[in-house]
């Protein structure tokens, strides 16, 4: 009698284990890194399209972040974007003071980190990928900042470019 009452419990336990196993199907060691930055020109609505890497978003939230809601005049000519191995997008542009680390979600880019890279506004930034880490190159001053999703890293001396 006792053994009979265990059967449904065992079945339920097996089902839960199987379901949990299905939910935990994970491919590890995925490298999302984008070898070369994308330089995207916003259209009249502020949308940028990276056809090769398959992403489209609007730059207006970044503009608001950088210049405030009151500033409606500053135009963003080009947006620079690169993705690191973990899959975070690093986004910046000329006249920005920050690099935005964005985490992709369901139909959204969520701010992971806002890295202040300059007291002055950036004049000619560029993003490179070196050894799976993102570098911000200030091409006007030849300064290089190494970044990850948590912020600025200690600068490496040499640059392989």
């Amino acid at each position, binding site marked *: 009698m006792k053994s009979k009452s265990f059967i449904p419990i065992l079945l339920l336990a097996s089902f839960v284990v199987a379901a949990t196993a299905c939910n935990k199907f994970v491919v590890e060691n995925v490298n999302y890194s984008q*070898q*070369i*930055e994308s*330089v995207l020109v916003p259209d009249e609505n502020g949308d940028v399209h990276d056809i*090769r890497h398959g992403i489209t978003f609007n730059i207006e939230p970044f503009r608001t972040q950088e210049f405030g809601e009151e500033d409606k005049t500053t135009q963003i000519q080009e947006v*620079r974007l690169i993705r690191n191995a973990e899959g975070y997008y690093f986004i910046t542009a000329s006249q920005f003071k920050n690099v935005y680390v964005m985490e992709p979600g369901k139909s959204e880019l969520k701010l992971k980190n806002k890295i202040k890279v300059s007291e002055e506004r950036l004049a000619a930034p*560029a*993003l*490179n*990928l070196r050894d799976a880490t993102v570098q911000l*190159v*200030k*091409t006007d001053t*030849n*300064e*290089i900042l190494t970044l990850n999703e948590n912020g600025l890293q200690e600068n490496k001396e040499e*640059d392989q*470019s």
Partner: protein
Amino acid sequence: MKRLLTSTFILFVLALVSGTAVAQTSDYQVKQQFERSYDELKVSIAGALSVDEVDSLVSQISNLKLEFENHEELLDHALYPETFSSSIKELQQEARNTEHKLLIIEGQDEKLTKLSDELASYRSEIAHLNSRTESLRAMITDSEKSERELSDLVQRYRNSMEQRDEFVLNMIDSLFVTYRDMEGSTFTELKEGDRSIKAGDNPLEVILAVIEENIQILKTDDGTLQTEDFLRMYVVQSRFNEVWSQIGDDLAAIYGGNNTLQWKANVEDKLGDWKASASKNMWASIDEYLEQNNVNLGAFDNNESFYEAIDSFISKATDASRDKVVTNENYADFQRFYDFWNTKIKSDWGKFVQEGEVLTMAQISSIDTEMMTWRDEAKPRSFMIPILFGLSLITIVGLIIVLARKN
């Protein structure tokens, strides 16, 4: 001084090296620089006008390869689905193709220069013959000389015309051979290229001048030229038309500059005039010759009607010979036409009759067969054999009667 120069040089190199080490470029800039250089080279290769220029571009491709080969991995990503290596190979291949094309064009240019010289030589020779012909014509018109001397002048005039026509034929054949052998792609290049032609060397001008001179000669003939001359002139214009229909479009495109269509229309209009005059004079001259020889074929003014006229004439004459008692007079009709057919159409004029397709080989062959039938019908038959046969029969019957009475 030498040491100072050496020190300055070393300092300059060090400054350059340290400058290079400090300068930081973005990968995106590297990609853009490569793409810019690649596009510039591609445009230069497509627009190269000489083999030397292509050779210099080939060395620039090598430099581009050297300059960017350190970034090969980056460029392989950046240029996807192309690669750095495939891009360089593509440039090298395009340079090779352009070089090959230019070598052909340079070969054709030499050929065209030679043709241009030939045209100039033909042009001067034709002008010389024209002037000689014209002066002979004037002499004939104004002549008060004896009939024998006049006939000599006419003969010289006709010889001069013959030489002139031969030159025109040689010229048009040279044009045809030169342009026929050109490859299709070369024509396209030649059309697109800047063909600087000296005034008077333009083949279109030469062609137009030759056509106009011929029209002039045909329209101003005062009876000096004979059927053979008109047949020859008809052949020359037929050959001209034939060659123009094959290379005229390309000649107009290459040498017509911005007025390609106008040149083409102009030449074709004149060719039409020439054909009409040559044709009219030739058929009228054949008709006149036949009338002078008492052969009445009826009206004809083209190949088809001429053949039909001969065919109908022979059929009627054959029927007539069949229906009537054949006389020597019937046979003389046959003989007259037979002479015209064999001596003139097939022999004296034969070359031009065939080349100008005044009659085709099939038509000539068909008329030959009809002529044989007519000859058989027109030949006067001998009555000697029937008479001898009758006499023999009477003799035999007589002998039989004599023998029967004796018995």
